[in-house]
């Protein structure tokens, strides 16, 4: 509705519309015409994402689409699982208290070895969970490049 009102009271000159549409359509045309660039982009993208998750490289797909007033890159990257290094380290289970013979009632508590509080291995601060990347939208605003 707002768009409609904007257009009604401040109609954009058609040359401005034309310029904008041309910019986008030429960007799409250029991307479609540069398959080697797209392949390199795809390879680099898979390499980066593979640092965090295992991906099915054969099924990865990168396409470009025009959405509203931007050209968007759509990456479809099937994820097979988390990489071991990327898993947040789990806290070690608490050590069970050491087995001791039942002390005679009179045994001083002092005889019992000190039982520290439930031993917890020092925990490093939780590593930030890597974001699951299944789709990545990037607005591309570059001027069209010529080969």
């Amino acid at each position, binding site marked *: 509705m707002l768009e409609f009102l904007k257009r009604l009271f401040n109609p954009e000159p*058609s*040359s*401005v519309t034309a*310029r904008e549409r*041309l910019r986008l359509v*030429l960007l799409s*045309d*250029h991307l479609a015409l540069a398959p080697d660039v797209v392949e390199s982009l795809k390879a680099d993208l898979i390499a980066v994402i593979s640092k965090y998750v295992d991906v099915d490289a054969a099924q990865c797909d990168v396409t470009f689409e025009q959405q509203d007033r931007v050209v968007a890159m759509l990456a479809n990257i099937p994820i097979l699982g988390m990489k071991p290094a990327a898993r947040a380290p789990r806290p070690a289970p608490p050590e069970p208290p050491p087995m001791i013979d039942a002390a005679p009632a009179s045994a001083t508590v002092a005889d019992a070895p000190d039982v520290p509080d439930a031993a917890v291995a020092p925990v490093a601060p939780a590593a930030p969970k890597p974001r699951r990347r299944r789709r990545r939208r990037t607005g591309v605003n570059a*001027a069209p490049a*010529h080969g």
Partner: protein
Amino acid sequence: MSARRIVVTSGKGGVGKTTTTANLGAALALRGKRVVLIDADIGLRNLDLVLGLEKRIVFDIVEVVEGRCQLRQALIKDKRFGESLSILPAAQTRDKTAVTENQFAKVIDDLAEMCDYAIIDCPAGIEHGFRNAVAGAREAIVVTTPEVSAIRDADRVIGKLNERGLPIRLVINRIRPDMVRSGDMLSVEDVCEILSAELLGIVPDDEDVIDTTNRGEPIALRAESRLAGIYEKIARRLEGEIVPFTALNAPNFLSRFLGRKAG
């Protein structure tokens, strides 16, 4: 001493390649250069018609390539320019597959020995006819109008020319300053920015072009037309001169009322 070999192309049809080829050739010839214009639009020839030479065609480029005549026999001299302007017509009853790229390039090579400028009028499209026309060229002039489809096609053709390493210069044809002012047409700046090509010329829309084409007279010969001056400037720029672009004013109220264009 070999000629400059220039292809005039666009991708989009109907933007003024043939008009530009004919008039640029005429303007160069008027400056004393020896010019040969080659019509690469086999099957839909029009360069002859635009120059009013259609009745003088005896042989065409296909017959040259097939060895049925000598190159010189196929050239038609335009007597209005003394010895300075000739055309090599296309065939009308064949199509663009009648000539290969190598054959076309050889014809241009041969022509380049006998003139200062070999200017090739490229057909619309980016297929066989385009590849032939470009095969013999060392430079390109891309013609576009300030319209969305034309610019898109020009962009595509510029990409193809870049692949072949041809230097490119742009002619923006049929611009209407009144529509640019009212925001209804892309401006010269818009077009140059979108296509990123060096500007060679800006030619306004002019109803006299239709009349002169009807008569087979290149408008470059009509001294009173502002387009003659514009094509002369384009020729000078092509020769390497720095020539500023004319500011195009919209026809004023009175001239619109009286039906004439100003300036």
